[in-house]
């Protein structure tokens, strides 16, 4: 783990998940698959919330709080983002991390 922290410091990436590495606010790299994605501000906000321990069911509330949109819009946006995250396998990284 110390080695991973050192590596993160060297590359300027943040390393809080076992396999997801954030680069600034724009990119996330899955270090196991080597796949990387450009993130919208909302996607970055929600992935970081997942990292901090949020549940996917809280996405709509988080969007409402952050962006001040009505709840119906937030629910739709949250579903769309979650679908994209799931298709890319991103939430799996957090599930694995939190497994006992």
């Amino acid at each position, binding site marked *: 783990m110390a080695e991973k922290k050192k590596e993160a410091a060297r590359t300027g990436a943040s390393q809080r998940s076992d*396999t997801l590495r954030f680069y600034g606010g724009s990119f996330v790299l899955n270090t*196991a*698959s*080597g796949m990387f994605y450009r993130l919208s501000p909302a996607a970055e906000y929600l992935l970081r919330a997942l990292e901090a321990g949020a549940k996917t069911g809280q996405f709509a509330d988080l969007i409402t709080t952050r962006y001040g949109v009505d709840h119906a819009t937030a629910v739709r946006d949250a579903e769309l983002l979650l679908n994209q995250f799931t298709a890319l396998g991103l939430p799996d990284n957090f599930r694995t991390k939190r497994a006992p």
Partner: protein
Amino acid sequence: MKRQKKAVAVTGLHRGENPQPGPAVIASLRRRFPDLRIIGLSYDPMESSLYGQGADHPDAAYLIPFPGAGATALLERLDMIREKEDLGFVIPCLDSELENYMAIHPQLLERGIDCILPAPDSFKARGKADLYDFCRRIGVPVPMTKLANNPAAVERCAQEIGYPVYVKGRLYNANLARSRADLAQAYDEIIKVWGWPLMVQEVLSGEEYDVTGVGDGKGRIVKSCTIRKLLRTSHGKGFAGIVVEDPAIDHLSQRIIHELRWDGPFELEFLKVPGKPHALMEINPRFPAWIDFPSQIGCNLPALLLDRLLDQEPQPLRTCAAGQMFVRHCVDLVGEFSNFADMASSGERIFKPRSVPIESTP
């Protein structure tokens, strides 16, 4: 006891659109052994590593007969080269020449020339014709592959697998056939060059992963580096890659190398279809053309191989960290026609010392 450091011969010197590993192996060796004498064994005076002047060029180069000429012709040529060079080791870098080196290994040892080669049964098991059965036996996912020995069999195999299919040569080349109409065109050229049998293979579509490493011959991977290909050429060759840390690939790699008791360098090529496990596409019995990438980030596998050939304790290697990446870069090398003429007529060329800067032509 440590062996005296003699010259190392390296093959596969052309970095063209389908780059060969030799120059990357040479560059890696020089990173650890800057004074090492490196001999290039070349099949053609136009091989790119024979031009220019840099760390990935040999100190001297000699033409050798094509692998098809056989093991005896190779040994005879190496004996001629030995009259001029204190040759101690050979690192073969092309699939097609491995069988010849395996055939003359005892004679090479008698002459004080060593190389690390896989056992014949390991080499055969990883061949394109046997890989499917090998993987099925050890439970490693693999695309469905059938062997065909004549045109009718190719057609039957393709029909059984279902179009589209890849038609692959015994050693090199693969062409896509989308329908029965494409089939003959897909294999005609391959047959002319490589002959029968052909492999007819299910088409998988997904991300490509490569593992390079060195096996100890007892079932263990001494060290390895895994990348995802970021860019691919029209031939499917990796032109950029990023290091990944995937326990699933590590597990499969260990399983394969353990089962083969693989000795020496290898490259495992996997393909990952979304939602399915990694499938093994090929096992190459040599270093890949991108081998100098791990060397540059502290994981010098060619140097590890030479340490072993020299009977010396290998230097500890770093683990390649996920996120480190390479992009291949093509450059134009300068030469004189006399360089080509020398090599083509005499079959040998001694290069200027690398420390001498290249003079520009006014």
